[in-house]
């Protein structure tokens, strides 16, 4: 039991460090989509909802499974869709306007 805990703790700490390293390189232009995107990642809690669903065997557990399912699904589906909607606006082709902006020498 204690080995499992220690292994998990090590993973936790290392993931925190990786997170700090990766996130601090993201430019402020993308901070809103990044926040929304990381928000979607914590929707992985839906895996937790699945686990408790498979273990549920009492009315209280069914209710909690249902609640966890609703909340986690809203988080994960909504989070990815809204992040994609934002980022899709960023990745629009810029060429048409880049041409006109070169005329400023005139």
């Amino acid at each position, binding site marked *: 039991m204690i080995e499992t805990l220690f292994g998990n703790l090590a993973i936790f700490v290392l993931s925190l460090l990786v*997170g700090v390293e990766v996130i601090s390189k993201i430019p*402020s232009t993308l901070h809103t989509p990044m*926040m929304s995107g990381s928000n979607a990642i914590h929707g992985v809690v839906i895996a*937790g909802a*699945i686990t408790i*669903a498979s273990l549920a065997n009492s009315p209280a557990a069914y209710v909690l499974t249902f609640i966890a*399912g609703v909340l986690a699904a*809203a988080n994960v589906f909504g989070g990815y869709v809204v992040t994609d909607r934002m980022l899709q606006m960023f990745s629009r082709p810029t060429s048409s306007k880049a041409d006109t902006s070169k005329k400023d020498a005139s």
Partner: protein
Amino acid sequence: MTIFQFLVGVIYLAASTLFVVGLHMMRAPSTARRGNLISAGGMAIAVITTIVFALVSSGGNWIGWGALVVGVALGAVYGVNRARTVKMTAIPQLVSIFNAVGGGAAASVAFAEFVANVGGKSLNLTTSIPIVLDVLIGSITFAGSLIAAGKLQGIISGKPLTFPGARILNVLVALIALGAGVLVLLSPPNLLLLLVVLVASIAFGVLMVLPIGGADAPVIVSLLNAFTGLAVAMAGFAINSQALIIAGALVGAAGTILTLQMAKAMNRSVGAIILGGFGTADAKTSAGTASEDLTNVRVLTADDVAIQLAYAQHVLIAPGYGLAAAQAQHEVAELAKLLIAHGVDVKYAIHPVAGRMPGHMNVLLAEANVPYDQMLQLDEANAAFDNCDVALVVGANDVCNPDARKPGNAVSGMPILNVDHAKSVVVIKRSMRPGYAGISNPLFTDPKTGMFFADAKKGLADITTAVKEYVTA
């Protein structure tokens, strides 16, 4: 450990790697979208693996799975609907709501894990500590994020809501939550005690966010995002799922960094914001004290501004909260497009906290079809101001207050846009009212500055009309 468990572990690791790679690709606008899709791919892998593992190892019964399927369907429909229809100006609220539900889900998972053990013997501390922490943090972020979303949406007053004894009540509630939490750890599984933790944490979340001013709400959203990450990681400890631990830790780190960066850009300490410290008032409501003294102010009309812009070579637009509040991103983009077509070099100078959350202004401009290579970040923008003919400030105030370079005032040391380095400055603003920091801005009375008093949306439209006359005439 069976081969099957080993395989599941490896697949979880792969999914987690995809999360990291996905986040990593969000460092450039050109790869960011693919990054998000890769992260979503990791999510799909993690979810499918969990389903297979759960079916094979425990099976469960149809009521449990039924409750899950119905719940997930409802949640997914709600989430996707909101995500598809939300206005870009309302993104901060939606992020906050998705954050709330994530925290709530994490708390429910821990609660369910606890319920499964009620009536049995004492839980091992390696399970019960994460359960209690998860319920604590998850409920705080659930309640707090909903209140913050309400404040951003304007359903709940953006003014700090306090009442006599609020702080004492706050401490009391926190002590009850922690005390009950410790009791849960010490006694055999007792549902009532964990319910006390849940209710007290929800109350604490509400009480924590209510006294925070609307302008500070985005910082709180970011902080609560970090909390949710931690709650999810705790859920991972409770049910021994490394995918949850890794993803939760990543989000925890992301939220923490953003919170610190944002607080720095607003010249506030995170502690001061949480304690709802000094004169916390929403930018919109902090009118009053400063006099509307116009003696040293050069007042411009839309025509004046249009002439100045049409004859400039280099124009920098500094959009601020006022532009976001007036939803004038399309108007500003139209004006810029017109000027660019006329041969003027137009770029946007974007302060990290312009808008309602960090990077929000970039999203608003992207929505209005502004290519991201026209958006300059703080350092690039400040280099460009030295060579700029007209700086057009739209609804921004404190982020371009030159007093920030002097010591001893509310904005001292805050990173600002060097708008005053431009050859001339035009400020579109509704009035001379001070911004969030509540101090006057010497930029507005600078001889090279002209003020155009108007609502951002209408003012920009008027200027565009006026420019059109000059350009076509």
